């Protein structure tokens, strides 16, 4: 029977911006319902309204056939609605356990927080879904992926009946996504209902029973998944067939642009280093993809390459010169461009305008006697906003853009102009298909313009799709390094996956070329 019905939901932001335009949305009990749509289509807004974070300007919500007004997440929780936000709502200084139980803490002696019970119950949830987090770890020490897990655990712990996941898979690896999906399926078996927002159409096909397609604030179609295919979905989303494929020719690799030599980062109070004698070379005109399960040193690699984290030993060479210890500013001066994984706090300044965000790296180029040439800047910003199709003008606060558009602003800033080295981390996290495609093209442009690119991502598809060679990291070590030839086959992915999970320790050096059947043989060798 029908669990939820949202009727004629309209939401305006500012005075003019229509985020939701009389949206009708309905939900069957025990279904997994996907919502897809371009960046800024209004998916999140709709969910925020359902979860009580935003109030609709008009429209009504029926839950189990009864009209409800949801004024706050508390109301939502009472109805058994839980939400995992794309942009985490976690408290970095607290432990995982504290974050999870916050608000519904188990009590000892009626007054004290019962950390023991909390940790125990949480560990149960964690294990039953094959997550990889320690209830007593501080959240600030976790990686983006692990934080994502905490958010999910939080909701499961709260025994929500209706689960809203706003792009939960963005930062998860293949394996993590698989286990998440099996989690969702088992939850469905337990009689729970799920809404999942995603930009990856394959996931829609894999997990959902029905799918709602949104476009420009309105619903354009509701289909049961079995009746549609990816092609049709993307047609519905953007009006034209948009499928994820790249045509990329090899370019001759130049000499080394960025080189890691035995780079090590220790962590206080633990003998396992975060980075463990990492050796890695990125040549100009080369894209080195770094794959790995979150928590295995990808973040540290990103930070140290960008000069935001000092290394304890080893060397990082930039055009042959040792740059370990230089600040990001100095690196940028030498030709670094950098798209960080943390888009909301590192990559952008939410309350500043799009323009101010765009010029942070290069405002020096717009100076006359210490004064900013506002005319030139305005022109520059407008140009980028157009060429990167960012919706919302250059003068509005970037914080009010949809996550996808925030990311576009960052890309516009980093991928314009020439760079010797581009460090990109999770660049398409939260982007719709079209935008992702666009990002890949930009990165390839940079490559053909001669930049060396360090491409860190938890999304194996895109790594295989775009990288020239692939480094796999596990527990802070580079455990595998192999040439890549766009082999999208399942076996190849599994092959790499085994390295990511630390199942293989035979180091594959780039020199012994890995051919399709070669790894197939190895794979068999393993399995038998």
């Amino acid at each position: 029977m029908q669990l939820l019905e949202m009727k004629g939901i309209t939401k305006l932001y500012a005075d003019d911006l229509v985020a939701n335009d009389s949206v009708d949305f309905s939900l069957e009990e025990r279904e997994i319902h996907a919502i897809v749509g371009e960046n800024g289509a209004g998916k999140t807004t709709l969910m925020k309204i359902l979860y009580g974070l935003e109030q609709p300007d008009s429209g009504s919500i029926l839950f189990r056939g009864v009209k409800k007004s949801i004024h706050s997440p508390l109301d939502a929780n009472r109805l058994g609605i839980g939400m995992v936000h794309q942009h985490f709502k976690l408290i970095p200084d607290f432990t995982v356990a504290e974050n999870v139980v916050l608000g519904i803490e188990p009590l000892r002696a009626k007054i004290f927080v019962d950390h023991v019970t909390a940790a125990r119950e949480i560990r149960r949830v964690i294990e039953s879904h094959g997550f990889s987090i320690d209830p007593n770890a501080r959240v600030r020490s976790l990686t983006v992926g692990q934080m994502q897990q905490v958010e999910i655990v939080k909701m499961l712990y709260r025994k929500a009946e209706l689960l809203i996941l706003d792009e939960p898979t963005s930062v998860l690896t293949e394996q993590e996504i698989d286990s998440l999906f099996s989690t969702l399926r088992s939850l469905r078996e337990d009689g729970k209902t799920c809404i999942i927002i995603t930009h990856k159409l394959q996931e829609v096909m894999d997990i959902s029973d029905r799918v709602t397609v949104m476009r420009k604030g309105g619903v354009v179609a509701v289909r049961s998944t079995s009746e549609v295919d990816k092609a049709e979905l993307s047609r519905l989303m953007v009006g034209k067939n948009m499928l994820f494929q790249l045509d990329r020719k090899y370019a001759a690799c130049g000499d080394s642009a960025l080189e890691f030599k035995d780079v090590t980062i220790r962590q206080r109070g633990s003998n396992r280093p975060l980075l463990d004698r990492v050796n890695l070379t990125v040549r100009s005109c080369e894209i080195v993809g770094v794959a790995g399960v979150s928590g295995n040193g990808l973040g540290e690699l990103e930070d140290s390459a960008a000069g935001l984290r000092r290394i304890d030993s080893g060397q990082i060479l930039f055009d042959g010169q040792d740059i370990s210890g230089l600040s990001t500013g100095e690196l940028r001066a030498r030709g670094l461009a950098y798209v960080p994984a943390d888009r909301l706090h590192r990559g952008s300044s939410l309350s500043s305008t799009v323009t101010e965000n765009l010029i942070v790296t290069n405002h020096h180029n717009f100076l006359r006697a210490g004064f900013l040439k506002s005319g030139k800047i305005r022109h520059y910003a407008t140009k980028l906003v157009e060429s990167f199709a960012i919706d919302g003008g250059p003068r509005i606060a970037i914080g009010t853009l949809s996550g996808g558009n925030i990311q576009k602003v960052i890309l516009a800033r980093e991928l314009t102009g020439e760079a010797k080295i581009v460090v990109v981390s999770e660049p398409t996290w939260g982007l719709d298909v079209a935008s992702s495609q666009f990002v890949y093209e930009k990165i390839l442009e940079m490559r053909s313009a001669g930049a060396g690119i360090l491409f860190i991502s938890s999304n194996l598809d895109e790594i295989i799709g775009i990288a020239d060679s692939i480094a796999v990291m596990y527990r802070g070590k580079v455990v595998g390094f192999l040439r890549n030839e766009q082999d999208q086959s399942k076996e190849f992915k599994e092959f790499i996956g085994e390295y990511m999970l630390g199942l293989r320790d035979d180091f594959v050096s780039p020199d012994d070329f890995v051919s399709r059947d070669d790894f197939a043989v190895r794979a068999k060798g393993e399995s038998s």
Partner: protein
Amino acid sequence: MKGRQSASGVLSTVMGLALTILFSFGLVILLIFLLSKMPAKTIYAFFIGPFSNKYYLGNMLNVAVPLIFTGLGIAVAFKSSVFNLGGEGQVYAGGLAATIACLAIPHAPGLVGMALALVAAATVSAAIAGFSGFFRMKWDADEMISSFLLSAAVALVCNYFITGPFDDPNNNILSTYPIAKQFGLLKIFPPSKLNVSAFLAIAAAILVYIFMNKTHAGYEMRMCGLNREFSRYGGIKVSRYLVLPMILSGALHGLGGGLMVLGTYQAAIKGFSFGMGWNGIAVALIARNNPLGVLPAALLFAYLDAGAKSAMLGGDVTFEIASIAQSFIFYLVTAQALYDIVRKRRRA
């Protein structure tokens, strides 16, 4: 804190401000009715008094001058997310420095002396505030607390110099020797004390505005203020902007104090600038840390002060009542909820 404010945004802010002020004035009138034996006379003195003659009017504007400087000083710091709670001591020290400079060169030509005095004032106070910024940069010692403590200590040390080495035995006020006549700023609205420093104040507000919004350093400072990690990532030398705002803030406070001496008192009198620092914070916050907003905010402040004074002369209001009245306005002047009432009206 949105990036820029649209014209309509500014308008509704102004209307909101008007509303809150009217509302709190209402409370003040109520209060006077409760406590005054001659309410009508007192209310008149409180609200109209400051405009009733050139002397009051001029002095009111003159009180606004140092408030503009301290308000700007705080705005600069706060916009950079650097907290300067040392305003009190910095204004005081600035005033004293200016005085000492003038006393050191009694025969110098007027302009030279003034210039030197103001340089001295700005430098001394900038240094005092700069220390806190430096400690923050070097060892991450909270600048808010260190500036507050330093200011408290500095104020006492200034007291020593005013009542000790530089005390003028010829008068019985606790004050230094008077500075030479030629260093006094030109009065522009006699008999009141209003002087050319008023123009400097306006100029300062405009300059600070331009600096913050149109210059390289200003941009980097604001970015650091909004998000330091983002700024470091963007290649800005973040640590520099823990010190620079403090120095600027201190300098502005110092100028405020120096101009009080040159323009109004012609000597450093014990405690002459007390309250200027705290009120500067209030002024800045009322102005939402907008350098241009500081001008009206400081005027509002000076008006309250003048109103209280004239109510004490023309009515039967006492200090306490005046400060209660002021507290009402403080309570409401930044109340967002009241502003929103206006916004909603204007939307519907």
